[in-house]
Structure formats: C-alpha cells, structure tokens
C-alpha cells in the first residue's frame, strides 16, 4: 500500500456541499454518542485562499497537545502545481474531519473511539488497545498510533480548550485567518454562514463520511485525476535517533 500516494490524492473528488446537503447522522450512530453538549455541533471551515502555508497550526497543535515527536495531528500539505507550463503553490491544511458518519467508529473493537454529542470524534486512551483498525479505516489519514502511549491518536478539535470556552490551538494561531471554528447548530455562527453562502467543499465526498471540516477555495487542480507520476519529496536524512520513522499523519 502506498500511503504517501494516498496522502497525495487526498483532494481527489472533492465536491461542493451546501447547507441542504448537511445530513443528520445515522440514527444508530447518533444514539451511540456520549459526552459533550448536544446543543452544539462543532465544525471547521478552512478558507484555503487565506492559507499561507506557515505551519503555525501544525506546530501549535504539537505544543498544545504534546503530540509525540515526528507525528502530526494536523499539517499543511504544500504542493507545487503546474498547469499549462505555469507553476503555482497550493496549500491543503489537513486534520480529522470529525465526520458525521465517521468510518473510524464502527471498526473500533473496544469502543475507545467514540463521537461526542457535539460531534467531536475522540479516543479514550484508557480503553484503546492500539489495534490500528481505525487508522486504516480513516480515508483522510488523520489517525496514527501514538508511539508513546501505543494508542490511537488524532485531532480532538482541542476538546479541552473548546470545553473551556476557547478555540482550538490551530485556529487561534492561524496567521492567514484561514481556519474558522464554530457551532453549526448556531445559525448565526461564522461557520454556519460560510457553509450557507460559500458552497464549501469537503474532501472525498464519495466516501460518504459527511465531514464537518469544510474547504473554501479548494484548488480545483487538486480535484482532478493526476496525470503522469506525481513526485513526493521524501527526506533523505535518517530518522532521529530517538524517534521512530517519520509519518505525515492527518
């Protein structure tokens, strides 16, 4: 399995979603939700036009969440794209999509992975056995096995901050103002307004996951089928002596 290739094709098939397309979760899935306040449905809108690829989000997430070395809960994939002989830069901030119909949930044998009633998908590290099924099930490469705890790890929307009335670390520090976080259940929230008016897209809509991370201005170049051999840069330096091999999660 060429996982790096999977990363690369993340954008393939992105499609616009309108407010009308926001479906309710499957009834059984909704019933299994626990914790969080059902009055809220947390979501993120990423306005790619404002992303400057500075990786502030990436590093803030690491610092906030003490993410283990060489692992990433979120990252900005930065591409050089060429069309008609003309080169440009394309950025794609990536994280857990906190899907309405999350494929990581049903594969979890222990119930460690669950969805809160406010939509945030989390992992209970006291229950997780690190089997990795959820890592494989996620179409967005958003999960990884934490090499310190040996349990599944991923973006939590900084649930500990959100519960404290704060914003996720990546949103707080987004230099270009590309990451917008808020409550879809509040029609007056910025994310609700943007989803209503900007026809944002989601990644891999064909997977039927119904993501709650939306993208404005997702480069249409990233939608199409890649022709020729995409070239993915890999470091030649050997991995850090004290850390396992690098992996671009999320």
């Amino acid at each position, binding site marked *: 399995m060429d*996982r*790096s290739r999977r990363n690369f094709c993340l954008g393939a098939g992105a499609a616009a979603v309108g407010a009308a397309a926001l479906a309710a979760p499957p009834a059984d899935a909704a019933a299994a939700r626990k914790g969080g306040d059902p009055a809220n449905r947390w979501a993120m809108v990423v306005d790619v036009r404002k992303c*400057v*690829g*500075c*990786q*502030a989000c*990436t*590093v803030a997430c690491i*610092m906030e969440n*003490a993410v283990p*070395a060489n692992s*990433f809960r979120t990252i900005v*994939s*930065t591409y050089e794209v*060429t*069309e008609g002989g003309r*080169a440009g*830069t*394309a*950025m794609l901030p990536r994280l857990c999509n906190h899907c309405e119909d999350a494929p990581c949930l049903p594969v979890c044998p222990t119930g460690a992975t669950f969805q809160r009633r406010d939509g945030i998908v989390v992992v209970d*590290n*006291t*229950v997780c056995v*690190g*089997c*990795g099924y959820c*890592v494989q099930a996620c179409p967005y490469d958003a999960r990884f096995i934490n090499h*310190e*705890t*040996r*349990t599944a790890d991923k973006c*939590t929307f*900084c649930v*500990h901050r*959100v519960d404290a*009335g*704060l914003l996720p670390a990546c949103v707080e520090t987004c230099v*270009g*103002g590309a990451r917008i*976080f*808020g409550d879809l259940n509040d029609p007056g*929230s910025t994310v609700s307004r943007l989803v209503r008016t900007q026809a944002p897209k989601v990644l891999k809509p064909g997977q039927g996951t119904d993501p709650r991370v939306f993208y404005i*201005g997702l*480069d249409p*170049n990233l939608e*199409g089928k890649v022709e*020729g051999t*995409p*070239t*993915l*840069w*890999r*470091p030649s*330096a050997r991995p*850090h002596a004290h850390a396992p*091999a*690098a*992996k*671009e999660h999320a």
Partner: protein
Amino acid sequence: MSITRRILLKTSAAGGALAAFAAGFSDTARHLVGGARAADRPDDAISGNAPPPEFRVDPATGTVTPTPGQTVANVACLGCTTLCGVRVRVDTAANRVLRVAGNPYSPLSTDPFLPYATPIRESFASLTRLGERGLQGRSTACGRGNAALEMLTSPFRVTTPLKRVGPRGSGRWEPIAFDRLVEEIAEGGDLFGEGPVDGLRGLRDLKTPIDPAAPELGPQVNRVALLSSVNDGREPFVRRFFNQALGTINVVGHGAYCGGAYRSGSGAAFGDAKKMPHAKPDLRNAEFVLFIGTAPSNAGNPFKRQAMLLARGRTDGVLNYVVVDPVLTNADNRATADRANWVPIRPGTDGALVMGMMRWMFENGRIDTRYLSQPNGAAAEAAGEAGWCNATHLVIVQKGHPREGRMLRASDMGWVTLDEKERYGDRDAFVVLAADGAPVAHDAHGGAAALFHDGALETPDGALAVKTALTLLRDETMRLELSGYADVCGVPADVIAGLAREFTAHGKKAAANAHGGMMAGNGFYNAFGVVTLNTLIGNLNHKGGTIFGGGRFPDEQDGPRYKLASFPGQVKPSGIAISRPVPYERSGEFRAARAAGRPYPAKAPWYPNAPQLTTEYLTSGLVDGYPYGLKALFLWNSNPVYGIPGVRAAAEAALRDPATLPLIVAIDPFINESSALADYIVPDTVLYETWGWAAPWAGVPTKTTTARWPVVEARTERLPGGRHVQMETFLIALAMRLGLPGFGPDAIEDTEGNRHPLERPEDWYLRGGANVAWLGKQPVPDATDEDIALSGVARLLPALKATLKDGEWRKVAFVLARGGRYQDDGEGFAGDVATHRFKDPLLVYNEAVGTARSSITGRRWTGTATWMEPVFADGTPVRRVHTPEDWPFQVVSAKSVLVSAYTIAADRLRHLHPENPVGINADDARRLGIATGDRIRIATPGGSATATAIVRHGVMPGVLAVEHGFGHREYGARPHVIGGTRQPDVPEIGAGINLNDLGIADPTRAGASVWVDPIAGSAVRQGIPARLERLAVPA
C-alpha cells in the same frame, strides 16, 4: 485542466509511513489487554498530555477564570528578526514555557489589535469563543514562533561560561568561574599557554593612534570590535559598553549579510546612507503591490503582519499582487490565482526589469507629474501631496567641471553668499526652473517646477550644462530598449510593460517592495530602482502606497525620566571603522597615493555610501589588517562564519590563529559556527528569559515598542544576589572591574539630577521602561493589581519597586503587562495621509552617490537608479571572469518558511522539514538526467557541496535554489565536550547545505575578500556562478 506534475514541498516527513504503522501495530498486538501502558499513561483519557487550558471563559457570563499555576505573559519572540509581540503561557511551578501565541495588543501579531487601554482580563476574553471574538481578534504566532520555545530547554544550550581547551575550534571546553572569566578578559595574560594576550584594560587606549602616520584611523581601542546580529531590544546597552564606555568605533550589526543591498538602495532614495530608511507597502489599503526579491507570507519582515494582510487583501479585499523572483514560494496561492501571480526572473537582473518599467512609464506618460514637479515640501502640501522629491532639482552635468555631478546651488547662481562651512549645506538652496524657464531657488518657488530640462544655464561663472534629476533618470532608462531589458532579465517585454501598466493604474494605491533578494553583485542599483518606482508614482506617506512606519517609543534616549543616552565620562568614538564607511579620498593613504601620482586603486574598497559592514571585518580587516588589524573580537549572538557567503574560505584560518587575532569572546546561548572558534563563550539568555525594548523595522503605521522581560527564570548559571550569567551581567562586571564610566553605583542620572545605579539588567531596562511609559502625549495609566496578577508581571514586582520611584513602577508595569507600548490602531492615518510621515525629500538623483568615486577604479558612480550588471570591485562583470560557459548555473538563496539560521536545533521544526533539497528547474533537470531525490554536486568558484535535488517548475531555468538555514556544522551538528561531558549526538542538525559555503571571493582584489556589491558592500548570495552534476547512485 490537467496537472502535469505536483510536488509536495516544505512539509516532508512522509517517508517510512508504512513502517511506522507496522511497528505500532505489532507492538500493540502484545498489549491487547487494553489501554495505554501504565508507565506512559497520559494525564487525561481524552486530551492526553495536553496541559489544562490557561484560562476558562464562561460562554454565558463571559467571566474569565485563570488556571492556577499558569500565567499568560506578553513579551517578544526572537525566532526571526521581526520580533513579534507574543503571549507566552508559562507553567510557573515548573519554570517552563508551555506554548506561545500572539499578543493581542501587538500590531505585529494581530489586525486589528486591541486598544491599548484594554484591561488584561478583557484581552484574554478577546481570544476566546465568546461571541466568536477570538476569530476576529485572532493573535497569532507563526510556525517558527510556535516552536522557538524549544531553544529554552535545548540540550545544546551553554549555561556556564566556557574557556577553550586546546586550539580554537577543538570542540573541547572547560567551565570557568564568572569572576575568573571577567578577570581574564579584563586583564589578559598568558591565558592559553600560547603567549601573552592583551586584556581589555590594555586595549582601552584612547590616546595612542593606531598609526601615527594615519591619525584619521583613530586610537588603539579601535582594535576591539563587536559584531552583533539584530537589535533584539538590547543593542543600546551593548553600544553603551563598547562605543561609549570602552570607546571603540567598531560595533556592527548583521545587515551587510542580511538585506543590506536593499537597505542601501533604499537609503539612496531616502537620502541617508547610514540609517538607510525604508518604507513598506500599506498592505491594508493597497490595490496592487509588486514584490521583487521578497516573498511576503513566505518569509520576510514583518512576517505575520504582511502575511495576514496579504491573505485578507487577496481574499476579502481588493489586493492584487505579483511576486518577481527566481523561485516560486508560499507568497503564491493557487486558490486566489486571479489575485496572486509569480513572474520568474534571472538572478541579479531586477534592475533591468525596473528600468524597463520606468522607460515604459516615461514613454507612456504614466508618472505622477503633480507629485514629481513639486520642488519643496510646502508646495507639495499645497498641491495636496503627502510628500515630495528632488525630481525638478538641477544637477550640474558639465563635463570636467569641478562640480560635475553636484546639485546646482543658490550660491552657484550668486543668489547667496555663504562661508565655506555653510556653502553647499542645508542653507544653500537647490535650483529649479519655473514655468517660464527662469531659475529659482527650490524653497522659494510656490508651484510646480520644470520636470525635464537638458541644456545650458547662465550662471555668474558662465553657461553651465545642467539637467533636472528626473531628466537624468529618464536618460538612464533609455539606455536599453524594452526588448533589451527583457533580454537581460528573462521577463518578456510585454510582461514588463504589463507590470508597468498595472503599477500605474491605481493612483497612489500601488507599491513596489524588495528585500533580501537584492543581495546580488549589483543589488544597490537594483534596489534603488525598485524604490524609485515608488517615487515615480508619488506613493510615499499615502494610504495604500508605501508607508514609512510609525516608529517607536525609544527607551534609550535622555528622558523623559532617565538619561540613558549620555553619561559623564562617556567616550565619543573616533577614527575610521574597519569597513571604511567614509570616502577613501579623506584617508592618508589616498593623499600619499595621489602625491605618488596614482591615487587609485585603494588597497581594498571603501564604502562611503554604506553603513559599517561585517563583510569587511573578517576579510580585509582580520586577514589583511586593513586599514588596521584587530586584537579582540566580541561576537554577540553573531554568526558571520555561517552567514557570510565565502567567508569561511577567506577567513577561517585567520580566525583560528591567535597570532592573527589574539582574543575572541562569544556572548551566545549556543555554540554556533562562529562562537565555536572563540576563546571564551559567555552564555546569554534565550527568548523569554530576556529583557529588551524592541521595535518593528517598518510596515506598521502606528508607533510601536515591544517589551521583552523575563517570564521564566534564566537557565544560565546563577550568580550571587539572584543574578544570572548573561550579556548584561557580563558587561556590567567587566565595566566595573575596568572602572569604565557609565556603569556602577551612580551611572544613571534621572531628569531631576538624582543618580541611580547600573549594576543589574533591570537597572537599565526598567528605567528605559519609564522613558517608554512617559513618552507620547501623556504617560500611560497605572497598571491595576489585576493586570499585574494576570499578566505574570507579579514576578517582577520586587524589582519594579526596588528600581523605580513610587509614581513610576505601576506605569512601567502597565507597559510590561501589555508587552510593550502601542499607539492605537486608528491613529496610523489622518484621511489618506500617514500620521508618521517621512518629511524629507526622496532623491531621484542622489548627489552623494553621483559624486562618489569607486576607490578601486576612481570612476564616479551613477547618481540615479540604473541598470548595472553584477560586477566585482574593479568593475569587471562577474560573468566575464566566471563565464556562463564554465559556470552555466547561478545559485540563489531562498528564505525558509520554517527555519532561520539559529533555530535549527528546534526538533519540531526539523521533524516537519528535515533538510533543504536544492530546487532545479524541470527542463535543466531533464537535460542533466536529474530526478527529485537524486544526489547532486554543486560547484562554484568558491567551493562545492553535495546536496539532494528537488525538480521544480517553480524555479527559473539556470537557477539553483538553496533554502537558507540548513547545512550547519555546529549548533549541535557536532557534539562538543564541555568539562568532560559530551553533548548529545544529533547529526540531523547538520542536514542539508548552506549556500554561504558556496560563496566566492573577489578575484579582482589583492587581499582576502568575499564578493560584495561595490557600493553597498553587501554580501552576494543571489547569482553565484555554479556548475551542477548528478552524482552516481551509491551502490
């Protein structure tokens, strides 16, 4: 549309993904009994090891509740030279910084930023979900700024003073007691068993000339030099010691190997070659910006402010912009393809592009004649202009006339009689032509003056050939056809014309900007040209145009509370600095050479139109002892060996030789490529342990001063009385041992004449804070107890109360709590005009440049912007020496999104971006059979290096793009042995290559050299001739 190629840039870390997964899987298979292993069990079942949030806000009531044990303090970052205001979250019990984000009061991190009077508690609320205020009031740190805190706890930090063991650069050190360190450096002696070394006491000779035959060089004390890096808010303190107390003239920053060419070219337009003012686009209001050799939102200064305004302007606003650069960067974003464009250009040819644009502007009448024709400030004001320039001023062009190249003056016309001292000075007006063609003093003319004139003018001494400054510029632009300029720079003529049309289609709401990309062998004129574009549309001081910036609240001046600029017994340094920033014609060498009939060339170049230059310190200065040798070199957070292209080859042997340079003292928290060669290393504080009063370089329309104060206790060795080893305590101890003025018990006078001590860092910085607090229309308010408690300033209370007066300390606490002093956001403009204006004229023709002669050739320079190809010191084009046939490629430096020269040891940045593959154009790569990931060898006339290739369409053909910040040999790349303990092995710190190791010498110079711009003296890293070959795949 189809994509032919996509390349993942910047973020890498994808290698070995499957392996990591498999390892995790097989491991956990043995732990199927469930849950994280007890020993590794995180703090929380869901949020793992994330510490508790710094505070909570009740969404219903808005009440902010701080988390016990944490504070959020507003200080400055030092991950790059922008020195953004940041908020630092501290675990107080652990003395540990947990995370860093932006200071919401700071315009460098927030837009719009909070009103200065906002209480600290409310500033916290402004960052939260409460009413979505945190989305609007977002205050950020960049990727590097988020990671920089790792430097505080880096295992490679030096925490005790060190003395070398064995020869310089051996990598072995012994700790030395602080008092002993001070004694050895002050008194000298046989310090290394290699013979006697002069201490500072012996070197502080303020009377004996270095050379009795050349008294202009100054006294012996000038043989002591300090190289600093960036003014991190502490440079005035360092200058107090070295310039004013010790008395050397040789104190120099890093500009000559940073962005000096741009600054000097800008200085030529702004009429100040030493301070080199520069303006920045007003990105909040601009409609079109042309960036040349600078990549906003990829890097640059002020990085975040530019990035956030650019992102917003291209998405929600009216901003269109073009980036002209040999390398595509993150300044581009295909999601806003209609707003952001990249135009590739050949290295070092920006001058051809902008001269072509100006030619088109002249030919198509697209210059702002109303602005340009105002001969003085009052006329400009009356015409509704926000500034003025010398376009209409007449220049003497009479061949062979003693004043050829000089501005025509009132005294030349016989209108005034001034004595020798005042003649040709400020009181001697320039001459312009009125509408009827009559000559008139520039400051006596009420309306527009003639823009163009080329002819004779009757003067008391007869007819004199004169031209207006603008005529001289127009003549320069006409030297090549548009197609000729296009041939030079590789930008098609229709694109040049299109850029000129767009640039002139927005009135004053357009701007051109440059910076580090100007560091070519002709960078001075390229930069002068870019800034002159702005002059031609008259956009300075205008909303949406270029703004000079609001400046700062200076701490180090005399008053309003304490006299920090002057003190009894202070020395006024005299003589000529090592880098010769004065006319060669003023030297004894010139007089002797002229008497001998051959005044030119000088032994090495002089730079009258530049500031002091580090580029000459280690080459002509250190190696050749020209104009005099050094006996002691202090390096304060300075790393010229890493940073100056070609200097290692030119000067490393001399640096290693105590006979050439008897004493090297580094004041640095790390062992870098330069401090590794020192005799002593004095550990300095890092980031948030440090005091200082910093300021933005430009780009902020309101007055801004950023505070630095210790939010954690320094990790350097603790001294008696609670002090720590750091730059300030070292210099204070040294000054007191030497009995220097300006330090000690009664060193600081307040404005009422009382005397106060300068014995501890806070004696200086808190009193500077009092000056900051009292500047402006009125002093700042008093900090409340709650401000003090919530901001972490409480930890400074004992020092505040002990150092400052009763009426002072709460005001200084108010400033410290807010991380500085910030003029309110709305005060940057009055209508369409900037509040803080550059009031002097911009120079279309710079008389000082136009009458200076090359000290090598004796030929005069051009006084306006012009196209000059990259040259060596004697004027020989570089491509004539190192021909394209032999060296078909050109190496350029590209700024890194994540890594700066001194943050390589931050693990998290390296994990994200472990090395710097060299960008090669796809067509070049195909021709040479090079694929991404291949190993390649790059050779230049100055050295060679092996690197990894990344094949890109976003690199100009013929260009090799090297990202700055990698290829370290120190900072941890080589473990040093300190007192028998070996530093950790982290060879990853040495990954990639350093372009500066490929820099070249100037073969037209006799002595040691690195290639520099002949006027700015700035190091050349854009356009180094090179060869490229693919290396065989290792077996």
